[in-house]
């Protein structure tokens, strides 16, 4: 079970340090990315920062902005690394408009198979459980299905514990001692 640790910046945004590389061997850059759950893509960054990395340009795509309008973006493909894990994804390139920050979105979490936990000043990303049990999707009583807020602090040291369904527990040989 791999856990990544990020932090909340002064503005209260969750951040995670990642490394991004393109096609050139040995050319990579560490980026202090904002985890933006309102962004459905993999990664978004200013084009000027992407040039030195040798990301492979693939073409264009259309993004839907927060006000419902649409905007064309150039897109490239790059490899993002966190710790020993690396995955390939689409990088949206901002030119003159859009945020100057590097954003990682929901596609990033999906591809890396991570669940995001925000606990006070800690940002923790842990491996997602294999499946979400039906009992968690549809509450059987008036009680909310989500993890109660008061239970959250207990997840600091065992971050994956609240989401692990007991019925579909990891086989004993894969569990940590």
């Amino acid at each position: 079970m791999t856990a990544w640790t990020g932090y909340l910046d002064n503005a209260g945004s969750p951040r995670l340090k990642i490394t991004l590389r393109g096609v050139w061997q040995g050319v990579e850059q560490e980026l202090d990315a904002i985890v933006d759950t309102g962004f459905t893509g993999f990664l978004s960054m200013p084009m000027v920062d992407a040039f030195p990395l040798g990301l492979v340009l693939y073409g264009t795509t259309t993004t839907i902005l927060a006000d419902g309008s649409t905007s064309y973006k150039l897109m490239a493909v790059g490899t993002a690394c966190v710790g020993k894990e690396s995955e390939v994804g689409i990088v949206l390139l901002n030119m003159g408009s859009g945020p100057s920050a590097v954003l990682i979105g929901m596609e990033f979490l999906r591809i890396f198979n991570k669940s995001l936990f925000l606990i006070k000043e800690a940002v923790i990303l842990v491996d997602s459980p294999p499946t979400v049990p039906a009992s968690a999707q549809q509450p059987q009583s008036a009680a909310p299905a989500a993890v109660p807020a008061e239970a959250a602090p207990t997840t600091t040291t065992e971050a994956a514990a609240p989401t692990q369904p007991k019925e579909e527990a990891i086989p004993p040989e894969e569990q940590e001692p």
Partner: protein
Amino acid sequence: MAEIMEHQISNPKQIAEKGEEIYKRYQTAYEKEHAGKFVAIDVKTEKLYVADTAVEALQNARADAPLGLFHLIKVGAAGAFRVSYTANDSVDWLFR
């Protein structure tokens, strides 16, 4: 088409608009058959590559057409991705 090939990536707006134009021909059928999937459109060959994920569609397209220029679409959506920001000037200068 010749105009597109001349401009290559120097005119991204033209690539995006050409991709949208090509997709319109297939839109009705694709929204019935491939709702929620991603389509990479090669604006040079007008060939479409459908996959469950965006990166898969692009990688399939690039494998088949290493020199292709692609426009990515999500079937049934106004855009392939949603972003959480907006801007007074929401159009990148390259697309004006």
